[in-house]
């Protein structure tokens, strides 16, 4: 599954990551899988402020994923 990171998560993990995943899979399961692959980023990834985005829409952790989905993880945002 293709995963893209923004903000500090991209610094920690890289901009893009291919994650071997089995279906059925949810955003939350994918989050845990990446945290196992990158323990240094585990705490940041599981921060409740880190949101996931699929097909341009923000989705909750129980959102089901397909093998061809591209998932974006957004580090905590800050404008102004």
């Amino acid at each position, binding site marked *: 599954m293709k995963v893209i990171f923004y*903000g500090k998560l991209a610094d920690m993990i890289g901009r893009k990551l291919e994650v071997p995943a089995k279906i059925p899979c949810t955003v939350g399961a994918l989050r845990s899988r990446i945290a196992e692959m990158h323990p240094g980023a585990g705490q940041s990834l599981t921060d409740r402020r880190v949101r996931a985005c699929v097909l341009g829409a923000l989705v909750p952790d129980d959102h089901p994923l397909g093998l061809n989905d591209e998932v974006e993880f957004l580090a905590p945002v800050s404008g102004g």
Partner: protein
Amino acid sequence: MSIEVRLEECPFDPGAELNALLGEAAGDGAVVSFVGTVRSRSKEGHPLDALILEEHPLLTRQSLEEIATAAARRFDVSHVRVVHRCGELHPGEPIVFAGAASPHRRAAFEAADYLMDRLKTEAVLWKREQSGAGSHWIEPTGADYRERERWG
């Protein structure tokens, strides 16, 4: 009612934005604006070389538009204008212009305040300070989140 929202990759002139808003609001009675600028020192006190604002190809604009639209619906305002920078900024450069016009000053003040509280915590942008001491990501503070929560 008009809502103007722009995400700018290059420096913008906040004076020109205020003048445009004043022109749109001619006769309305009240215009309030806020301009945020890049500080000269990092949070740790080091002279700042640059502030990097990373954007998302889709969600950044969407978030700015949603926040501006919510302000226009919530307050008795006639015009809302939000201009936000992205990319590499340098000390002194404007980061954000948030302005509102209204027949009543209180609504204009509140709309500008609301816009900034939400932009600080919800605009989809990632902010990184670059100084001689390295590179640091900047996230909203507890106070920023508390001020956002005032609006429910």
